[in-house]
């Protein structure tokens, strides 16, 4: 059985199994199966590395009748990153979300929801079919909303409800666009849409799909649901929501604007997308600066960090796709997606450790905790280096590539925002770091197992390694990259 089928189905099989298992067997089964999925993700990445994109026509029916799946370098890299984050979150959650700590409801609910989220992510990364992508993001959104509601507090339920309204409105807009695309061309396949005969309704279809996906990706001004939702969930769930979930809808945007309908990418539309991203970088950074709780700082930082991803549109899309700087911009944005995923998951997991240790994540209460929990303090600092974009991290590689492309393209405003966003990130992350590394401890901390503390450290170290060993992911990301539009065709 191919690695592609394993990463697609094993999370589902495990989710169904977990629902039938007695409580004590749950965690061992999830951990064993997570390890297998990480291995399968590695095997899939290797297969793509050696043999190029891996494709599968599900059920043996080729599009337009059936659904095509395809693992290109980008999908393989995202599947690998998600598998590492999921595996780490499962390892942390076995300490954090035990039934005797958080009750039977949360101790049960987290595991199947986490696995369903994983299945939805992999389904979205691999799918080449617009309607199948809709079903994938529906599963993703429902599992994500339930994870927000998991902690059960009134604020969390309110945040989950607001998230669900945004997510459902986004789904409806996206679905309306899909229906228009199908109505005009009789196919939902991205590859077939790329070679379609253009119709008048295509711009409306692309606009509706894009608006829906922006709401799900929480791009400014659709970001308002994100901070309360991500800060209200239990820390392992927050790690998944912040590190992985927005990447799925962003990937669909890439599939639409670079692969299915690149001919519609007008300069003005691309500019609007990147301008919203730039506002998100600044606005998210400023709001992160004034928060008093660690989880809210980290959540607002997600609003800002997602903004950088949208610089890909004017730098590598539309007319720019044939330019020499396009490859750098494209790869830079993808490096940002990967390194942000690893670093942000690490940060939320450290927040979970602090909450378990002192029962609070207020900055005032965190003072001096790096002395009692040095490993966790180190993990937070490493993750912060990636988010600030300092060398030698993956975040540095991402911002360096985006910045050089911006200068090469003569679009220096994006470079200014990249620099300003880095300064803001340094400022809003300085506050928790200064508190953690303060001289005197404020609160007595409960002991935390070393194995638990090691989990975010490994993730944060991986986000740095991504920058040190950037050549391998760089080459992987080029495999199957949408070919630039040929001039004069």
């Amino acid at each position: 059985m191919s690695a592609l089928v394993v990463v697609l189905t094993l999370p589902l099989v495990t989710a169904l199994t977990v629902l039938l298992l007695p409580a004590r067997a749950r965690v061992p089964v999830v951990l064993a199966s997570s390890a297998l999925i990480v291995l399968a993700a590695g095997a899939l990445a290797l297969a793509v590395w050696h043999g190029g994109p891996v494709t599968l026509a599900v059920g043996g029916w080729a599009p337009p009748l059936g659904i095509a799946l395809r693992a290109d370098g980008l999908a393989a890299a995202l599947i690998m990153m998600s598998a590492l984050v999921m595996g780490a979150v499962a390892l942390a959650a076995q300490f954090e979300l035990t039934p005797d700590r958080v009750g039977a409801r949360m101790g049960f609910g987290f595991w199947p929801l986490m696995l369903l989220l994983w299945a939805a992510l992999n389904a979205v990364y691999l799918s080449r079919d617009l309607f199948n992508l809709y079903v994938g993001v529906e599963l993703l959104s429902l599992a994500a909303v339930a994870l927000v509601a998991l902690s059960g507090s009134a604020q969390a339920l309110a945040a989950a409800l607001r998230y669900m309204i945004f997510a459902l409105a986004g789904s409806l807009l996206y679905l309306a666009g899909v229906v228009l695309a199908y109505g005009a061309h009789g196919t939902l396949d991205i590859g077939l849409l790329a070679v379609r005969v253009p119709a008048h309704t295509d711009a409306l279809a692309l606009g509706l799909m894009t608006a829906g996906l922006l709401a799900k990706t929480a791009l400014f001004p659709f970001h308002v649901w994100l901070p309360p939702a991500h800060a209200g969930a239990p820390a392992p769930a927050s790690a998944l929501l912040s590190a992985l979930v927005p990447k799925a809808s962003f990937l669909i945007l890439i599939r639409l604007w670079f692969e299915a309908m690149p001919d519609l990418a007008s300069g003005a539309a691309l500019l609007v997308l990147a301008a919203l991203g730039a506002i998100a970088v600044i606005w998210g950074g400023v709001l992160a600066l004034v928060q008093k709780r660690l989880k809210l700082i980290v959540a607002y930082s997600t609003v800002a960090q997602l903004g950088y991803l949208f610089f890909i549109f004017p730098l590598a899309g539309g007319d720019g796709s044939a330019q020499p700087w396009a490859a750098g911009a494209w790869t830079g944005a993808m490096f940002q997606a990967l390194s942000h995923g690893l670093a942000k998951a690490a940060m939320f997991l450290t927040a979970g450790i602090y909450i378990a240790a002192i029962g609070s994540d207020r900055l005032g209460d965190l003072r001096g905790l790096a002395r009692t929990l040095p490993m966790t303090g180190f993990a937070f600092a490493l993750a912060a280096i990636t988010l600030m974009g300092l060398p030698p991290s993956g975040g540095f590689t991402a911002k360096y590539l985006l910045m050089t492309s911006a200068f090469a393209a003569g679009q220096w405003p994006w470079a200014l925002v990249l620099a300003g966003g880095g300064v803001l990130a340094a400022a809003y992350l300085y506050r928790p770091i200064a508190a953690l590394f303060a001289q005197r401890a404020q609160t007595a901390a409960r002991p935390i197992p070393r194995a638990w503390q090691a989990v975010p450290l490994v993730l944060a170290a991986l986000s740095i390694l991504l920058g040190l060993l950037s050549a391998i992911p760089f080459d992987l990301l080029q495999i199957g990259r949408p070919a630039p539009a040929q001039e004069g065709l």
Partner: protein
Amino acid sequence: MSLALDLALCALILGVALATVAGGGVFRAVIFFITYGLFLAIGWARLGAFDVALAEAAIGAGLTGVLLLAAHARLRRMQAGDAPPPAGLNLPAALAGAGMALALGWAWFALPVPATPDIASALPRSGVGNPVTAVLLNFRAWDTLLESIVLLAALLGVWILARDGDWNAPLGPRYHALSGGVLVNFGRFLPPIGLCFGVYLVWAGADYIGGAFQGGTVLAAVGLVALMANVVRPPRVSYALLRAAVVIGPAVFLLAGLLAAGFGAGFLTLPPALAKSVILVIEAALTISIAVTLALLVIGPPDDAGRSS
């Protein structure tokens, strides 16, 4: 004649939709929404999409209606439903809705004649005669498999909303039914009929109209009537048989797909000779899960407070 009927139907759909969103009162809006679903179902039937019409009537109007009425009753119990609705028009929402309607209306006239995939020539190899079932269970089986999982995720999301102390309580609120009353009699009289109809819909779905979703919804309604009439007791989330019933549909579907991959045919590939029997087995399993999941979605999370009060 038929044009007049269609125009009247369109006017009714639009009027009822307007009555749902405009004007005061949650209860009024719910009743209009149910009516809206029924008119929409007639509309689908007029378009020849009988499978969609069945699903719209059963899920859009039926189960969603029950759900909304239950939500309204709960709001009233908590004295939260009495708050007067905000006066006047919600201008941003109205503008957004009108803009969307105009854009889609324009698209209708701008759309080229649709080219649909060639289902007719592939249908003989799909194992079933109903093209809708062929698309759902064979050509695009991966979509349907994921959709059955979406239903499961929704159920987990509803269960998660329980209070921590109620986790081991029976599911849903306590229903009051007068012994010898209309509800109790219905609870004993309707289920056998509904059971036959639901099973027929699934069986006929292979070649005619119907299928696991439509049949499952009818069976869910049967379960709900029996539950509300206190003919059967509500289960608890820890009940093993309940968990198995919720899981069996997606599990059998997934297993069939993986077996095909294991035998070298490819994930979810049904050999034409076996397709019909495999599809029937998957549909039977899916029907159980869909019926149980939909009924459980309507009755809601474990709730002890609703019982003691």
